[in-house]
């Protein structure tokens, strides 16, 4: 199992096989594993990984954790729960970006994702534990999102956790009419919108990775010298300051010559201090 998965950018959690099929086809995903009733599909080249959770909030939460445990992708990836949902008005086929999720069982609410108002309409969603037919509120209804939202933000962050729902049934159009073919059509119909949303998401993922991720050189240096756990943390802080001041310099040569991690950090601190009197803000 590959535990360094910087190549993945999108982690999908879907409830139904028929929902997954649409994405498997769209992103050319291949089967990776089928343990614990959570089939996983991936495509390393385009950065997608997907798990089929099955129906229900708890299954969605567990599948999210399972996918994370399988690939250990770190902080800078997007987690997306996509699927069909009921809505009082519809119309059927509309894709919503869910910006508030309420767990109908306990009233707990979640507010996932950075809003893309130009790309998708916003909606509130209630996650229920049994299929909803009444549609008493003007909101979406599903059976998974609350479980997903309970877990996904802690794996990345709230702003990179997205819930997208496509209306499949309304008070006028019963869920008994939902078929695999209909789900495939609903995803097909919204394919361009999904692409647009992913383009917006990947920009954020790439930016966050570049801004907050560790410079590649840093890992090499930490392997070449002995760092205590405390010194690792200290080095990470000093390195980022040093790199901010000297973005075009390399530290690798100096690290090779340094007698210890402590010496290296001390020389870096001296570099930084030497700039203090003529400090430039940009």
């Amino acid at each position, binding site marked *: 199992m590959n535990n360094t998965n910087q190549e993945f950018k999108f982690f999908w959690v879907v409830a139904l096989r028929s929902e997954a099929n649409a994405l498997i086809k769209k992103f050319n995903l291949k089967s990776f594993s089928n343990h614990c009733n959570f089939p996983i599909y991936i495509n390393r080249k385009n950065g997608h990984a997907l798990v089929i959770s099955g129906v229900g909030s708890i299954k969605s939460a567990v599948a999210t954790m399972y996918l994370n445990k399988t690939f250990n992708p770190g902080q800078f990836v997007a987690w997306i729960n996509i699927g069909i949902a009921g809505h009082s008005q519809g119309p059927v086929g509309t894709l919503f970006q869910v*910006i508030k999720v309420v767990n109908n069982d306990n009233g707990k609410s979640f507010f996932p994702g950075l809003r893309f108002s130009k790309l998708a309409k916003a909606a509130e969603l209630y996650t229920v534990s049994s299929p909803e037919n009444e549609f008493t509120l003007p909101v979406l209804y599903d059976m998974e999102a609350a479980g997903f939202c309970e877990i996904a933000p802690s794996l990345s962050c709230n702003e*990179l956790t997205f819930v997208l729902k496509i209306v499949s049934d309304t008070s006028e159009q019963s869920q008994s009419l939902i078929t695999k073919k209909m789900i495939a059509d609903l995803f097909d119909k919204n394919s361009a919108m999904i692409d647009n949303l992913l383009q917006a998401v990947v920009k954020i993922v790439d930016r966050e990775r570049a801004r907050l991720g560790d410079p590649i050189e840093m890992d090499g240096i930490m392997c070449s010298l002995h760092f205590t756990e405390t010194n690792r943390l200290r080095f990470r802080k000093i390195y980022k300051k040093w790199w901010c001041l000297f973005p075009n310099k390399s530290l690798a040569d100096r690290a090779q010559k340094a007698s210890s991690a402590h010496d290296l950090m001390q020389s870096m601190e001296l570099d930084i201090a030497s700039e203090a009197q003529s400090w430039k803000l940009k």
Partner: protein
Amino acid sequence: MIETVFVESQIIDHPITERVLSCLPKADLLNINRYQELFNKRQQNFRLQKEKPALILAKKHDNFVLPAPSGFGMDSQKNFYFSHMYNCIYDCRYCFLQGMYSSANYLLFVNFEDFFRSISETIQNNAGSSLTFFSGYDCDSLAFEKITSFAQHTLNFFKEHPEVEFELRTKSVNIETLLNLEPISNCIVAFSLSPESVADVLDKKAPRVNKRIRAIKKLAKSGWLVGLRLDPLIFCKNWKGLYSELIEEVMADLEIRNLHSVSFGPLRYPKKMYNTIAALYPDEKLFAFPMQTTGQLVSYGPEIENEMATYIQDELKKYLGVDRIFQCLI
């Protein structure tokens, strides 16, 4: 532009809520029970959220008026502050609000009337003492004025309380509300300023310094008391020249008799707050500086602080008496 507004159900019919919502007709509107369920959530990414903050309209239930931290304020016996809003539409790199809240969303408390009731009580409870009330500690007091009308309400309130001083702290040049009112003798409009080249780098999304200076002069000319807040003082190459230029520029043609006070203060953070903010900006040179940690406080250190304070004070003394110059130390 605000795209999403969350409103606590209990204040959906409040006049300020109605006013705010009427100013944002295109925003998505969602009800919430209490603002904490959204504002205090863990795992929020402050930087990402700051790109598109939502507006939360809520009711504040307690702690309307708080004692100002010691070292804040001028020469009143007692200083208090109140915050009708948390977070700011500007994005100044040094701002402590980034380390204060886990959310970058704007949180507006619409029950202004409860703030005023509490301020009245504070005035009554401290009769005989000279008091100053500050607004703009947790937000910018004027920046949201077109939507909230907060300044207008607040100035009307303090107009009826000439026995106390009120300072409205801002970087906004949105001064129409003030220019449309008769100046109020116990109200000070205080502007935070940095040298232009410093502000260009650090005061993201805030009005340019020359515009702020123009607003200051306009207000002073129309009879408003103004304050200058050189806070925080930023250490950088040629800082002496930059601050001298700034002071010279702002003092030129300024109606000095309407200059209430000038204060300056060092760049200082509680250690935990500094670490939080610095982690948000690993690519920001401001936070790459070799700061000194003394106890729980992170600063440039006494040597730089003292040199800057002495220099700024000397520069200011060229234009006004020491009775109007104050050093803030929080």
